[in-house]
């Protein structure tokens, strides 16, 4: 990539030195004079009516300045407009152990903690539900008074072409059940926030959030303040992974407490409370039936998912759609039927965790294909290569695939891992497994309906030569601040480390929707690119005049603007700004990015479209101890189609981080609850919630496939989430290769492997996993003719009295 000076290079991040020396100020590092400390009293009941709350004694405790209860903040909020189902503090009922019911502000954290003990809450317990199946079986008592049916929050039925007919035309039809356990993000930084209410009635909230724009909206709504008087500053996040993408109770509580007391108020959640904020992976039960021809061509697919949503909506409606959306962007699925349901249960709310709703179906699909390949006697890599979605095509569910490097990814890992020399050839106990995946580079549609850009950048050129980039994007450790600097530096020919980056401050920076859905590099990157190109345009005009060189011969590089034909003929970048400023006044530009319109026009078409899809292929090697069932993963080979790396070191870092997180989900992570003990979270601690240590981390061999996508800045696509997806199914497939048993659920724990081995030894099926899917009254499907049936992306109008469907 020699044409670029900055793009693609393994530069350090612009904030790296501050991070590694401990100088970065996270939310919990902030301190203000007269600051108060907030603690939240949380429900000890999983599902109950609040009969009474008595805060008299807590209010009387010396050092306590304010106590809030639900009725002090009666306006609901929630990340999605369709799920405004949360209150800052529970109003009349609690829905899980950990639901906040009261907030205290006191002069010390000890006093605030002591005050919690003095609050008397009387609960009238209600029947509680600890699994999606339970919630399906019991429509009453309802956890929420809204939703599609009983305790089912959302029901989706989408059919693209006649899937049943497609499946019927197959040579082989295979059905499988899978379960994907819930897991949490486990960011090192526990959520923290500080609120300040100024004497001139303006609110400032510093908070470890991935989405300051949405927090801004929620604060204005719940506190009934003009948005112009609310300022949200996202502090650098010590990890997010999707767990800091919702507006949270504690953020609103400290804001209200600051308004009441007139003093700054801070809250730092405990690790246990972070488990209660959750918004992690939905536990998901899945059923898939696929028809294939002898050569592996898919004729039709029917996919069902049942998500355990926990106690609140969060992003759940989108998560549910995502469990059915991206099956079609890797392999050619000509006819596709998706049915998805999300249940409310009395557990911490689920939401978006890295991969948001797609790791579960990807696990199911990739293991399912491994089984199909075996039945057809086709190598699993070959099977996939035969059915790839072509680039620049439209899928059955109207997702527009642009660049598509999955074939190249598969070829790389097959070669790098010596797949052909290992698959079904290793000694008992050792195995390899292959899986692929794809992910969006930003959601094509915003969370709340609007037709404005998804990302904005302002760029200021100072006469000293300094450049400042302002953007609402949020640095969560992924390097988004650096991306802005690299892109602007490349265009303006200056040193990225000279650029001032101001981000995630709703008073100072233009809106960016937030650090979620792998959208930041593509969207804020494109906005930065546009702003930088506009600045360069202005500077070039005046530099050309000054140098008396034709505009098109000017180059911006190494802090200079010069004639490409005569490098000595040039001025410094600062002089170029001075010329322009003298002629035009202050030099500032803006850039913004709006994704291309999506092709689907049916209800539900909003989830899945993206300006570009990344692709990954992965081979995992495993060692399985047949005596204990313990699985170890020595090596993973992964190829990722990133379009183009903006920073190759950061890209590889994201790949390795994804694999690390994926290994945890594959082997051990589990949001476990004591169903028989009040649905309490079994292990809300870093010690007992098992996540891999460096000792469990495998060696990673990463290959980057760089085929620039026309929609990405410099061709860049996402890398933050996609490489996680193939890890779990690759490990599951490798376990089968190693010891001949199928564990059709994650985590693949030693107990499950050993049980499957014992079953196999007894002559039974060597399998561990679910064997049924509950009966759900699905709605009448939204039928959408596929593009190859002449469809235009719209659903077929519903005719009256449609016949009852048989499943």
């Amino acid at each position: 990539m020699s044409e670029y000076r900055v793009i693609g290079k393994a530069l350090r991040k612009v904030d790296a030195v501050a991070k590694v020396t401990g100088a970065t100020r996270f939310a919990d590092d902030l301190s203000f004079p007269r600051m108060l400390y907030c603690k939240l009293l949380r429900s000890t009941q999983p599902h109950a009516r609040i009969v009474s709350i008595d805060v008299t004694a807590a209010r009387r405790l010396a050092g306590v300045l304010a106590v809030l209860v639900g009725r002090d903040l009666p306006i609901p909020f929630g990340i999605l407009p369709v799920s405004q189902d949360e209150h800052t503090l529970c109003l009349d009922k609690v829905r899980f152990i950990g639901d906040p019911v009261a907030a205290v502000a006191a002069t010390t954290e000890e006093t605030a903690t002591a005050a919690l003990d003095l609050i008397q809450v009387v609960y009238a317990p209600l029947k509680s539900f600890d699994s999606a199946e339970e919630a399906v079986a019991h429509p009453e008592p309802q956890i929420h008074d809204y939703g599609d049916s009983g305790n089912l929050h959302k029901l989706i039925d989408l059919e693209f072409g006649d899937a049943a007919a497609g499946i019927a035309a197959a040579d082989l039809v295979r059905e499988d059940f899978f379960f994907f356990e819930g897991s949490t993000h486990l960011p090192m930084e526990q959520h923290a926030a500080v609120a300040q209410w100024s004497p001139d009635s303006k609110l400032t909230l510093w908070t470890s959030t991935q989405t300051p724009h949405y927090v801004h909206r929620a604060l204005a709504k719940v506190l009934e303040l003009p948005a112009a008087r609310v300022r949200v500053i996202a502090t650098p996040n010590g990890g997010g992974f999707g767990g800091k993408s919702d507006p949270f109770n504690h953020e609103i509580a400290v804001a209200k407490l600051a308004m009441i007391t007139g003093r700054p108020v801070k809250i730092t959640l405990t690790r246990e409370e972070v488990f209660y904020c959750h918004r992690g992976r939905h536990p998901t039960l899945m059923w898939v039936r696929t028809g294939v021809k002898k050569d592996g061509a898919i004729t039709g697919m029917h996919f069902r998912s049942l998500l355990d949503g926990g106690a609140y909506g969060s992003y759940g409606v989108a998560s549910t759609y995502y469990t059915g959306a991206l099956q079609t962007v890797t392999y050619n699925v000509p006819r596709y039927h998706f049915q998805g349901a999300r249940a409310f249960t009395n557990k911490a709310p689920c939401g978006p965790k890295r991969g948001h709703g797609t790791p579960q179906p990807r696990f199911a699909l990739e293991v399912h294909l491994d089984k199909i390949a075996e039945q057809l006697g086709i190598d699993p890599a070959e099977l996939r290569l035969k059915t790839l979605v072509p680039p620049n095509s439209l899928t059955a569910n109207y997702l527009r695939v642009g660049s598509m490097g999955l074939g190249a990814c598969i070829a790389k890992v097959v070669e790098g891992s010596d797949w052909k020399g290992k698959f079904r050839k290793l000694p008992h106990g050792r195995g390899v497994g292959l899986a692929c995946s794809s992910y969006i580079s930003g959601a094509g549609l915003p969370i709340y309906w609007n037709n404005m850009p998804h990302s904005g950048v302002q760029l200021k050129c100072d006469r000293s030569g300094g450049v400042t980039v302002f953007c609402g994007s949020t640095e969560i450790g992924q390097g988004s601040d650096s991306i802005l600097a690299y892109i602007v530096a490349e265009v303006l020919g200056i040193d990225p480390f000279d650029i001032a980056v101001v981000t995630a401050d709703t008073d100072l920076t233009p809106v960016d929707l937030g650090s979620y859905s792998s959208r930041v590099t593509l969207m804020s990157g494109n906005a930065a690119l546009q702003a930088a190109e506009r600045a360069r345009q202005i500077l070039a005009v005046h530099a050309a005049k000054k140098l008396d060189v034709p505009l098109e011969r000017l180059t911006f590089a190494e802090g200079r603007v010069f004639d490409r034909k005569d490098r000595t003929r040039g001025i410094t970048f600062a002089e170029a700004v001075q010329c322009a400023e003298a002629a035009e006044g202050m030099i500032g530009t803006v850039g913004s990015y709006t994704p291309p319109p999506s092709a689907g026009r049916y209800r539900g078409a909003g989830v899945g479209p993206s300006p570009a899809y990344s692709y990954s292929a992965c081979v995992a090697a495993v060692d399985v101890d047949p005596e204990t069932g313990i699985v170890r993963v020595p090596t993973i080979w992964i190829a990722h189609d990133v379009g183009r790396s903006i920073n190759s070191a950061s890209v590889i870092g994201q790949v390795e981080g994804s694999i690390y997180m994926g290994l945890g989900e594959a082997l051990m992570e589990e949001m476990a609850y004591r169903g028989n003990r009040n649905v309490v979270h079994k292990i809300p601690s870093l010690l007992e919630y098992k996540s891999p240590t460096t000792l469990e981390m495998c060696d990673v061999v990463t290959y980057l496939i760089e085929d620039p996508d026309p929609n990405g800045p410099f061709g860049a696509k996402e890398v933050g989430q996609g490489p996680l997806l193939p890890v779990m199914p690759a490990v599951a497939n490798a376990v089968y290769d190693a010891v001949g048993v199928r564990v059709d659920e994650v985590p693949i724990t030693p107990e499950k492997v050993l049980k499957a081995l014992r079953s196999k030894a007894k002559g039974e099926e060597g399998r561990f996993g679910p064997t049924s899917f509950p009966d759900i009254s699905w709605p009448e499907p939204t039928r959408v003719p596929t593009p190859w049936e002449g469809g235009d992306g719209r659903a077929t109008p519903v005719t009256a009295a449609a016949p009852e469907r048989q499943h």
Partner: protein
Amino acid sequence: MLRLPSFRYLQPKSLAEAVALKADAGPDGMYVAGGTDLYPNMKRRHQEPKTVISLMGIPDLRTMEREKLGTCVTLSTLSNIPSFQHSAVGTAARLVSTPLLRNMGTLGGNLCLDTRCNYYNQSYEWRKSIDFCMKKDGKICWVAPSSPRCWAVSSSDVAPVMVAIGAEYRLLGPQGERVVPAARFYHNDGINYLTKQPDEILVDVRLPAPDGWDAVYHKLRRRGSFDFPVLGVAAWVQWKGKNVAAARIVLGGVASYPQEVAEAGAVLMGAPLCDESIAAAAEAAYRPSKPMDNTDFDLSWRKQMTRVYVKRALDELRARH
């Protein structure tokens, strides 16, 4: 964040001073060594001492001799001595938690480690939501609700080794000094899991002289670091030529005390270690191993692993004889 409650912190310079300070503090006083067990427990209000008496400034507790170990020797020190005669002790010490915690945690702390249970090692608020348990603030054992006793688990790595090799503990209290065999230091009761009185200090551990015996320790846990054992196997053999003259198999992590399985040692005696005798010992150890549902992993799997881990421990002893 989870705050450590306020307490008075005292730093005696001698054993006598420590005992006197404890007498002054009464039942609200507690000794602390490295604090890696006590302080997290205090944050969760498992122990609520008003006065904490540090033993770390007492030179007598830092003894490091071939056959005498002071209890304030850190686990790092214990695990990093390459020439350490009693290698199983070093192995067990090295397998405790993480390097950082071993730098703080001590031998005595690990030997006196509070029993653990995932109904108990939780915050005050969490425990409130299950109405507490009998080990602290409540009346019932949630692991076995009809049981009159607490089933919290002995989770020390070093204690099973000390019991297996027949170490002796020296204690000092207001009534003077006493020496107890390691096995008699522990009770199979999750609440009263030590015979040590609260005002006694565990001073040092006397190790048996190397005299034709060998011992190993194998630990089962989810991850290679951090985790407490869900099963520990300490195996000790007194060799007489090629034959086993005596043997002890001690299980950690499956009961409220380091559980010696006498039958498992007995089947090994009088013959060389061979596949058959090892299998018989593993089977004998498997039968009384009764882990409960209060740690990581499924309890039936943990029980099954007893057989595998005893076999592997004995295989190692056989291989290096």
